């Protein structure tokens, strides 16, 4: 009996921390979402009213749409830029190590600080427009209604592509050189080698990196809050911004929880898929 109990004592503090600070708050959010809200005090049961209001007012679906555009575009670009950089960096050339370290820098920059840097870069009289002016191009309202979404995507890709670069580079290095040699003996062209040796070898690395990045990008708050606060208007109001605004802007905590609960199924699927994949890969 004692022997069976001992391991649990070793893991108990961690399990306790996660339960108290994540599992319990999750149940609290579920409870919150069907109480209070728009009609009545915070404790009265309102059933699905909060959800209905979020959906019928259109704020929720609007935020879902923007979150999807933001997430899908940003992840695709990060994979493209990071993967491309990794493929080039995988060859030997002069200055490779310096370039790799340099390209890695954005990943080390805290999200909020990255937002601050871009605040200067993208403002009306900011860095990018000053440079464009020298080239004779009219200044662009980067953080205006039209370009705010591309701007936060730009920031997200700038900050996040090194993650793909480094993981894919590591993935490339574990593909055995003998596979390439065999392909060359069989007369495979460079493109064919990429298609039949490199890509299959990278499959799991790309899948896991993309899924992780999808969940992180989906939940992105810092970058957007610092750069645009969801504006102008609602141009960059993603789910995390919406939840924050509902809960702490209008101070309707229950409504904020309701939006969070409603958002949960959207990426729970990704999370479980990821857990399964990582567990399988790590064994």
């Amino acid at each position, binding site marked *: 009996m004692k022997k069976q109990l001992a391991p649990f004592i070793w*893991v108990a503090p961690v399990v306790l*921390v996660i339960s108290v600070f994540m599992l319990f708050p999750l149940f609290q959010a579920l409870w919150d979402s069907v109480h209070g809200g728009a009609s009545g005090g915070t404790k009265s049961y309102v059933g699905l009213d909060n959800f209905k209001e979020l959906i019928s007012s259109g704020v929720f679906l609007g935020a879902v749409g923007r979150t999807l555009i933001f997430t899908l575009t940003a992840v695709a670009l990060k994979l493209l830029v990071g993967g491309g950089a990794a493929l080039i960096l995988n060859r030997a050339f002069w200055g490779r190590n310096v370039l790799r*370290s340099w390209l*890695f820098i*954005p990943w*080390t920059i805290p999200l909020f*600080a990255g937002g601050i840097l*871009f605040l200067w*870069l993208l403002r009306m009289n900011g860095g990018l427009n000053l440079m464009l002016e020298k080239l004779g191009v009219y200044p662009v309202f980067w953080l205006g209604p039209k370009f705010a979404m591309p701007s936060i995507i730009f920031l997200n890709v700038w900050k996040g592509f090194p993650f793909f670069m480094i993981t894919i580079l590591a993935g490339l290095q574990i593909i055995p050189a003998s596979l390439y040699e065999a392909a060359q003996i069989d007369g495979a062209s460079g493109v064919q080698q990429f298609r039949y040796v490199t890509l299959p070898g990278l499959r799991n690395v790309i899948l896991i990196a993309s899924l992780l990045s999808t969940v992180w990008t989906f939940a992105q708050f*810092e970058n957007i809050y610092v750069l645009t606060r969801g504006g102008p208007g609602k141009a960059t109001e993603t789910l995390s911004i919406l939840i924050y605004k509902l809960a702490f802007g209008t101070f309707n905590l229950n409504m904020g929880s309701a939006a969070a609960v409603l958002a949960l199924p959207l990426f729970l699927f990704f999370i479980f898929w990821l857990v399964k994949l990582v567990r399988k890969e790590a064994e």
Partner: protein
Amino acid sequence: MRAKRWQRIALFLILLVLALIVALPLYWAVTIALRPGADMFTRNIAPSSLTFQNFYDLIFDRDWAGFQGVSFGVPLKNSLLVAVSATGFSIIVSTFAGYALAMFSFRGRELVSSYILLAYIFPPFIIVVSLFRFINLVGLKDSLLGVALLHLVIVVPYCSWMLRGYFLSIPKSLEESAMIDGCTRMGALLRVILPVSAPGVASAAIFSFTLSWQEMLFSLITLESHDKFTLPIALLAMVMGDLVQWGKLMAGALISIAPPAILYLALQRWIVGGLTAGSVKR
């Protein structure tokens, strides 16, 4: 052969363009931070001269950004305090959990591992309202202890998962031989395993430090008074002012960037494992 050569140069140039895009915001941040005040309203790309005045004012001139006389050293110290305490606690509990999950065999082991991994991936903004309520309930509103507690949400699952992966790579025979020599499990961990695992524990600690360092949402919902602000909130407060002092703002951003950037670049070798939480085999 000639074509190959051109191809190589083209690829190198693509990478160079990417390197320039990476440099763009950093170039501006550095040159704006080092620019003399009078230079701010010229439309020049390069500063006329360089000065550390902005950095000096940020720390020593109490009137920066009209911030109720709080030096920028205060948020710097607060962020450090929060990150160090969250990391310290988390490393201790995670070492035990990671060790047990890697070395012991017991029922429920896989379940606990999955629970930790799930917590690591789960985005905390879903439960931000509940955590806000919790902090108010236990009377930790506007306290650094409150922020540090909330950071455990991010840091503890991360460290546990990382350390579990690290201990898995250590041969079980090491523990067994220590126990044959008369060590208890705890003794084996402290005297034999930990000394060999020092690099793994150190890198988990460093990653956890940077995770806490860059977290903003929890500071935002917990802190109210200026002398309690952590770095992200202090910078946000500088932006909220009517007149943004860009030179000081960029200097502040650079100060916040330096510690994690230095730590990461010094530890590049270990980073891959950290990024994917041990999911990619090496």
